[in-house]
């Protein structure tokens, strides 16, 4: 399937690294301007130095509370907004060093599915055109095969060929998200950022869309960055998971490791909130005190210390080091001693 789709593209994949995406110490600050002259009075540190990598054909889940910078990470990787510092390497190539023309040529390989399927489709364009527009723009398939190609893509996303001439408002939320997915898939990408693709949908539809994404991953060998706040969804689809808190990555590792043995106090609290369908199981929930601090003025030291149950003196002054336990990475002072031994 993959071979007949794009034989010429596989040749390009000889890049030495087997990571499709590497993010190194990425920072994205938004300026806060005030007054008549737009004086800079501060910065919202939406993403404050995070690093991770994603292997080809795998899925990384990115979880965290709302406002912790998950979506900004996704958008910055796609260069939909500028970075403040750090590197984003796609196939070993720095995204932010590309010229506009080169970036546009690269766009088909990195696609995104947005959270809200209602507003992210152009309302006055028929679905066939929405899906096909960029396919034509980037000459993904020859003109004579164009119609068949679009039909095939639509069918693989659970849409019918006769949907082509309809407009987005004629579809349900789940179908619209299928259109968004078809739109992304049609460009034959290697990597898709899924920015909370199911949060706007009913639970029953969520499962369909998640399964569709999983099927497409198998079919086309895609890699996903799956941004979500729904832990059970992330557990289902991800190979690795990153947990974000206030713009920083607090824990990162394989899905099984993180779910079986969460190391960071924040991750523990987060996981204790996953509802269990069994009423006899006593839920041992860790309730976090207070609310998430403002990213414009994050706490010193460990950003989580204001709400942490295991707070120590050192947490208030020193930024925690990052500890790597065989690929299970955590940034917390609790593990200082353990690592010394």
């Amino acid at each position: 399937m993959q071979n007949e789709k794009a034989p010429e593209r596989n040749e390009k994949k000889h890049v030495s690294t087997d990571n499709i995406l590497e993010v190194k110490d990425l920072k994205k600050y938004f300026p806060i301007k005030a007054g008549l002259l737009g004086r800079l009075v501060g910065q919202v540190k939406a993403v404050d130095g995070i690093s991770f990598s994603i292997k080809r054909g795998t899925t990384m889940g990115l979880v965290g509370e709302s406002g912790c910078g998950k979506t900004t990470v996704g958008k910055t990787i796609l260069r939909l907004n500028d970075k403040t510092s750090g590197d984003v390497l796609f196939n070993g190539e720095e995204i932010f060093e590309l010229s506009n023309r080169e970036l546009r040529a690269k766009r088909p390989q990195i696609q995104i599915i947005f959270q809200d399927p209602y507003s992210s489709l152009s309302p006055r364009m028929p679905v066939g055109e929405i899906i096909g527009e960029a396919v034509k723009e980037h000459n993904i398939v020859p003109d004579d095969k164009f119609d068949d190609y679009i039909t095939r893509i639509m069918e693989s996303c659970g849409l019918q060929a006769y949907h082509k001439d309809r407009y987005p408002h004629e579809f349900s939320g789940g179908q619209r998200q299928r259109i968004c997915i078809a739109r992304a898939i049609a460009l034959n990408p290697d990597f898709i950022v899924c920015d909370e693709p199911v949060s706007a949908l009913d639970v029953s539809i969520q499962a369909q869309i998640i399964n569709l994404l999983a099927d497409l991953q198998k079919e086309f060998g895609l890699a996903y960055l799956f941004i979500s706040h729904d832990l059970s969804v992330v557990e289902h689809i991800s190979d690795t998971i990153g947990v974000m808190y206030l713009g920083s990555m607090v824990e990162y590792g394989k899905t099984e490791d993180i779910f079986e043995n969460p190391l960071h106090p924040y991750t523990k609290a987060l996981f204790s909130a996953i509802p269990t369908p069994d009423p006899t199981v006593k839920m041992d929930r860790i309730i976090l005190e207070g609310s998430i601090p403002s990213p414009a003025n994050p706490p010193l030291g460990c950003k989580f210390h204001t709400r942490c149950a295991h707070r120590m003196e050192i947490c208030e002054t020193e930024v925690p080091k990052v500890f790597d336990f065989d690929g299970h990475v955590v940034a917390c002072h609790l593990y200082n001693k353990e690592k010394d031994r």
Partner: protein
Amino acid sequence: MSKFIIRRVFLAALIILFGAFIVYAVIRALPSSYVETIARQRATMPNSKSYADWVAELNALFRLDTDVFTGFAGWLGDAIRGEFGNSWSYGIKVTEKFADVIWYTVALNIITFILQIAIAIPLGIMAARKQYSKMDYAITFFAMVGISLPSFFLSTMLKYVFSINLGWFDLYGIVGRYHEQLSSWGKLLDMAHHLVLPVTTLTLLSIGGLMRFTRTNMLEVLGADYIRTARAKGLPENKVINRHAFRNTLIPLVSYMSYLLPSMFAGSMITETLYQIPGIGYIAFGAIRAGDIPFTMFYSVFSIVLTQISLLIADMMYAVVDPRVRIN
């Protein structure tokens, strides 16, 4: 669609009828009565009847001795048969006078309309694409000046600079002193030359509104999620703007421009008067001042009909630019 059009046309006819009645009632209530002016003149002549007798006689002649309803019914009866009567102040048929002067107004306004669109829409798009840049502020400031300036002030300034100081254009009128001696091509150029200042005035005053309207709508669309999608697809920026953003801005723009259409035929009364362009605005202004009921009625009904037609066209244009309306 046809059912919709029929309903709209019926509604439009009703609005025209009531609009015409209101105008008629207002004219009848005006203090500047044509009949009284004539009666006063004739009464001062030697050996004449008294003022009251003249008023009574003339009122009967002009059918003004009835109440407003009967008078309106009489006018309506004639109007439906296409009889708008003779203009009292110009002495010829209303329709004839109208046909003589409307072309000046149309020429003036069509040139203005085209210039307005050609200048305001690109400026609006430019300002929206670079929101809060120096260019945006400059364009917005320029637009504000255009909106705020009264037309009599702007025309006076233009006349002062370009007619009096520089001597490039005549102060007023549509033709020059030697117009009759020119070839037909020369006559056209002469008139075009006289239209430069009025067109400049109208254009400068009108681009502000359209430009700000374009900018606001464009900004709204540019912030939409599907523009982000279009960029993520890797479309070139001009396609993002033209195909996704501008296409969605067109709908409010079309409705805005359809409101401009009736004003193209009726709205430049002050500018035409200031430059003494014998267009419909200038002539109608004279007729209203003289209490010329037939001409004023015709002019008003014409404006009302035009407004209704342009609204109807706007509704149908929606269907052309918005495929969702077309299907439903």
